[in-house]
């Protein structure tokens, strides 16, 4: 589906499709605003193919800005609105960005940071602005012809902390959004909570674009307020997407709620059973995806069914157009890397003007997930991120399995298991544990030994005040424990 066809479809919707605390727009009004803003851009001299850093906040104006840049032919690099100005300055120079968009103070601060030659224009109500820096601009197509079809890029810091852009064509992204909407049965009568940040691929594609594809109403939760029962009931929310960790913080009664989806982190069996108890009226879906795949890949529906007696729930069914393959079985044949064949695969990675474009040597339409799965009775079960697997004394330890047991110990609120270097023993597993009551380490070890072999339990234990998590509730890979 092209961006034009998508906008035309949304433009035919007479009901409200987007709302926040200050405004709401029908599909018709949304299209009108996007066309007007994109024309405004073109009139100001904006050139198609320009790489644009778009700082996406969770509000209606940001969505209009995003689609107007795409409509004007810009290549959108999805920006985190909370990134410091110095980081954005670096991104603009590293990735050859020719224009940047965001709230007015950020754009003015970036103008000051980048120095002379940057022109700023106010957009829409004057709360958003655009900055043009043609002297930094390097279009993707001119750098490498394999990037000629790219028009949306999502940053990933990966394991190095250095940002790289995961490149997509917007038609493929919109296709993935539609598949997700169909897989969880979104309806035009639904009201979807805009809770997850839209600068992440799941929030942007599955949540926001999925909602627009279904013709539903997408309501942004304001930045300053938490997700409350009062707000959800006031808005008559019927669809809510969360990480499993966030879901466990909720215990609310919202009669209009009919669908909940969970993703971004492993869904443990005991959490799935708890969610069945808390939300008996809802369709419950555990979802799996990664930005490289479009992002959505598979869905496992678990309401009204027995959750298997496993640490982590099954991967579930592949979306139409996706195929799930387990490859590189280890010598015991117990697990292997999940490969995904999908028609919404990324177009490659872009490491910046100097380091350039890179596409891994994967088969056509294939994505290597670097996630390890095993197969039990025909179902795929997540074992570990390949990079997170710990080899302690020659034995493999999978952090997710250990964390699952830790979290079920009475008084344990949260846990994170990591591999750390030990002077004498090489790599060892270390458990960081947050508790609500005093617990002795011997109790923790006893509970682990009750469920896991001796070789699979961590060597060291540290009690901490907090397990750092990202804005969506995922464990923070870069977290530093005090």
């Amino acid at each position: 589906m092209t961006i034009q066809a998508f906008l035309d479809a949304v433009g035919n919707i007479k009901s409200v499709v987007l709302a926040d605390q200050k405004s709401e727009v029908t599909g018709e009004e949304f299209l009108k605003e996007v066309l007007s803003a994109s024309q405004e851009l073109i009139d100001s001299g904006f050139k198609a193919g320009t790489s644009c850093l778009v700082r996406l906040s969770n509000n209606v104006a940001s969505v209009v800005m995003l689609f107007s840049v795409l409509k004007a032919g810009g290549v959108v690099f999805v920006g985190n609105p909370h990134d410091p100005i110095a980081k954005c300055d670096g991104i603009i120079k590293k990735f050859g960005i020719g224009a940047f968009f965001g709230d007015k103070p950020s754009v003015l601060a970036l103008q000051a940071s980048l120095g002379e030659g940057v022109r700023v224009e106010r957009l829409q109500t004057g709360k958003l602005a655009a900055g043009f820096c043609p002297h930094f601009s390097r279009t993707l197509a001119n750098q490498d012809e394999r990037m000629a079809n790219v028009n949306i890029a999502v940053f990933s810091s990966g394991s190095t902390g250095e940002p790289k852009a995961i490149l997509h064509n917007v038609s493929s992204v919109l296709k993935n959004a539609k598949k997700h909407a169909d897989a969880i049965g979104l309806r035009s009568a639904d009201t979807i909570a805009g809770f997850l940040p839209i600068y992440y691929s799941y929030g942007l594609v599955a949540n926001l674009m999925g909602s627009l594809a279904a013709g539903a109403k997408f309501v942004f939760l304001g930045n300053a307020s938490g997700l409350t029962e009062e707000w959800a009931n006031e808005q008559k929310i019927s669809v809510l997407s969360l990480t499993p960790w966030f879901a466990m913080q909720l215990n609310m009664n919202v009669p209009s709620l009919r669908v909940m989806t969970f993703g971004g982190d492993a869904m443990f069996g005991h959490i799935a059973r708890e969610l069945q108890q808390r939300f008996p009226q809802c369709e419950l879906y555990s979802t799996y995806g990664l930005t490289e795949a479009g992002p959505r890949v598979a869905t496992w529906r678990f309401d009204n069914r027995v959750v298997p007696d496993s640490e982590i729930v099954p991967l579930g069914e592949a979306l139409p157009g996706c195929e799930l393959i387990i490859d590189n079985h280890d010598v015991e044949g117990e697990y292997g890397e999940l490969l995904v064949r999908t028609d919404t695969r990324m177009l490659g990675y872009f490491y910046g003007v100097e380091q350039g474009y890179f596409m891994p040597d994967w088969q056509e339409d294939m994505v290597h997930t670097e996630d390890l799965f095993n197969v039990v009775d025909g179902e795929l079960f997540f074992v570990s991120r390949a990079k997170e697997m710990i080899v302690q004394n020659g034995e493999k330890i999978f952090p997710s399995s250990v964390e699952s047991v830790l979290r079920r110990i009475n008084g344990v609120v949260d846990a994170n298991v990591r591999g750390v270097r030990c002077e004498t023993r090489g790599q060892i597993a270390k458990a960081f544990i947050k508790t609500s009551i005093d617990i002795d380490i011997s109790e923790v070890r006893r509970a682990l030994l009750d469920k896991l072999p001796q070789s699979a339990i961590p060597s060291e234990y540290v009690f901490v005040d907090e397990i750092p998590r990202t804005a969506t509730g995922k464990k923070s890979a870069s977290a530093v424990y005090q």
Partner: protein
Amino acid sequence: MSSEKETIEKELRDGFKNVLMISQIDFVDLDDELNLDSLTQTELRVYLEKQYGLAIDIESLPPTVFVTLESIISHVIENKAQLAG
């Protein structure tokens, strides 16, 4: 603008810039939305506690307080007065 409000505004802008490392604060008007993420809101609460001696219970804090610079200034003035009283 009262001098107290001006003083607090200046102190807050300094805090945003030098403690919370939000350099765009120089370009934020009093009624602009700050769009703070949850981590920055926590850091701001700690800063206000240290700077003004305000004990801020995040659970009971009205969600509108951290929306604009104006609303934070009003909150500080109001709660400083309560502390003094």
